[in-house]
């Protein structure tokens, strides 16, 4: 039995070995002043400090995905295949929150009846997580039961230590990748508790109250949602950058010869999201839409799955043009109930 932990010189060195093993790699790179996941060919391209603006979900759940195509015949219609998923890819340098986000998406899309287009992409992704040693001001993973070194969703997790980097092998897929890396990894173990503690200590204290899921459900009818959501512009940025948001729209694009059916990201913060053809809208104002966001993450989902549908990456708080803070709103709304 091979050991389940290894040591390596650095995260960079592991990446170099993965590239040398001929793997296709997607990792954080700097693009136009922000960090984004992109295809890399050299280890130096990867930027392993900081958090990407958008989450890693795009690789498994792209912004636009062809579900199938069609060609108009005369007579009839011929169906054409959906998107060919990208080649097997190592998703490198994924922060523990983002990796946990993928785990949540796996649950949503994997639940029967499973979502074949998602799973087809996901089956080709190996997640190499990278623990955080420098949390950001908006980080909140500890508030949702994760930590800067959490393993959820990663196939391998790299944790930088003083003496190098600890590599935890968490899944068979991770082990298969390790098999390709040869000398870059040496069997060995180390304790990451100190790194975890240091990172957690560097985080702004953020906590969610106990009984949040029930408190929020009880607060559903409160008028206070209108005040809570007053700032929200309904722009949807929060959902687009979130690693766990997965709402989508299905649209056709076509011309006279044929077309394709696509799924494209959507967001529950948009007024059109729930608008019926009759003009009736069950979530007629931003208060109702913001409440849906808060409750989906911190009440409906946890009641069904035992964990929040939030991995505490803080991206929505950081990116919101209006300074909305979902942790603050949720806690206040639930408290107003007590």
């Amino acid at each position: 039995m091979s050991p389940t932990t290894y040591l390596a010189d650095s995260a960079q060195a592991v990446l170099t070995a993965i590239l040398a093993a001929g793997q296709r790699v997607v990792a954080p790179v700097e693009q136009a002043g922000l960090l984004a996941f992109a295809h890399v060919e050299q280890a130096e391209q990867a930027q392993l400090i900081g958090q990407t603006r958008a989450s890693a979900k795009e690789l498994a759940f792209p912004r636009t995905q062809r579900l199938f195509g069609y060609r108009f015949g005369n007579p009839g219609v011929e169906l054409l295949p959906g998107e060919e998923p990208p080649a097997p890819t190592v998703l490198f340098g994924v922060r523990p929150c983002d990796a946990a986000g993928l785990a949540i998406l796996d649950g949503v899309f994997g639940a029967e009846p499973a979502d074949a287009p998602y799973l087809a992409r996901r089956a080709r992704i190996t997640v190499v997580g990278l623990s955080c040693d420098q949390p950001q001001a908006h980080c909140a993973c500890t508030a949702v039961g994760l930590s800067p070194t959490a393993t959820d969703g990663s196939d391998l997790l790299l944790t930088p230590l003083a003496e190098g980097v600890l590599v935890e092998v968490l899944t068979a897929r991770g082990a298969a990748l390790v098999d390709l890396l040869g000398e870059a990894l040496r069997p060995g173990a180390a304790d990451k508790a100190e790194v975890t503690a240091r990172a957690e200590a560097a985080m702004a204290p953020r906590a969610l109250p106990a009984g949040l899921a029930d408190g929020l459900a009880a607060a559903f009818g409160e008028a206070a949602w209108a005040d809570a959501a007053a700032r929200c512009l309904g722009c949807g940025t929060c959902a687009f950058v979130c690693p766990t948001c997965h709402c989508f729209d299905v649209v056709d694009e076509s011309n006279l010869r044929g077309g394709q059916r696509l799924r494209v990201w959507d967001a529950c913060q948009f007024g059109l999201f729930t608008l019926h053809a009759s003009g009736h809208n069950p979530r007629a104002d931003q208060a109702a839409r913001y409440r849906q966001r808060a409750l989906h993450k911190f009440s409906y989902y946890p009641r069904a799955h035992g964990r929040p549908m939030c991995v505490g990456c803080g991206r929505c708080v950081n990116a919101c043009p209006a300074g909305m803070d979902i942790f603050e709103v949720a806690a206040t709304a639930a408290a107003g109930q007590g």
Partner: protein
Amino acid sequence: MRTETYEPHLMTVAQVRDETADVRTLRLTFTDPALADSFAYRAGQFAFYSAFGEGESVFCIASSPTETGYVECSFKLTGKVTSALRRLSEGDVMGFRGPYGNSFPIDEMVGHNLVFIGGGIGMAPVRSILVNCLDRRSEFGDITILNGARSAADLVYRDQTDAWTARSDVRCVKTVDPGGDSEGWDGEVGLIPHVLERLAPTPHNTKVVLCGPPIMIKFSLISLEKMGFSGEQVITTLENRMKCGVGKCGRCNIGGAYVCCDGPVFTAAQIAALPQEF
């Protein structure tokens, strides 16, 4: 690569019937005979209907599982996809994926008196379970049907309603809103809840199937409660906007319930327990 989750079956439009000026019924047959044999569904389930080039829309399956060899849907012209579906004629190809969702609890309805109430296009889901029950008539007690519409011109399934009225083993009433009657109208005049109170079905050992626009549901529920019906006795459907049908797209939820998976069929009692957001 297979993306069968969202890929529709190809169907041939076998028949086009206009119910009203803006409601049309399409009868669809599978282009693949193997599928035609294996396809099964239960009354109350829904499906996605594709007009290739424009998109897909959700309608309930309006035919009954006892009507084999085809499926039917009845839809009201409302927008992009429904306009495109109206451009199809017999022999054209369209897409169909389904069935999705739960269904009317027909087994629990066995042995009960049944009241079917449909308002406008809400008669489509009612029709499926109604025909299903009529085809198994002996298993049920009294059957009362109330088909209502804004005006005589908006009444769907008119011929079938007249056929049900002619039967001696059901009581069938059609009604239009006050002012909605026209020359030669031979049904009732009055809002559904009022006509319902006049019909005064007994709550004893009875199940009610109630589908229609939200406002009609709301007032019918009040009337039913007045007559002594409990929330468990009244079965209805919800129509939240849907894109996937399989609990992924995040659009149809009411609180923790996903209408596409946990519904569309709910009892009035179940609906009362949900957050009031529909």
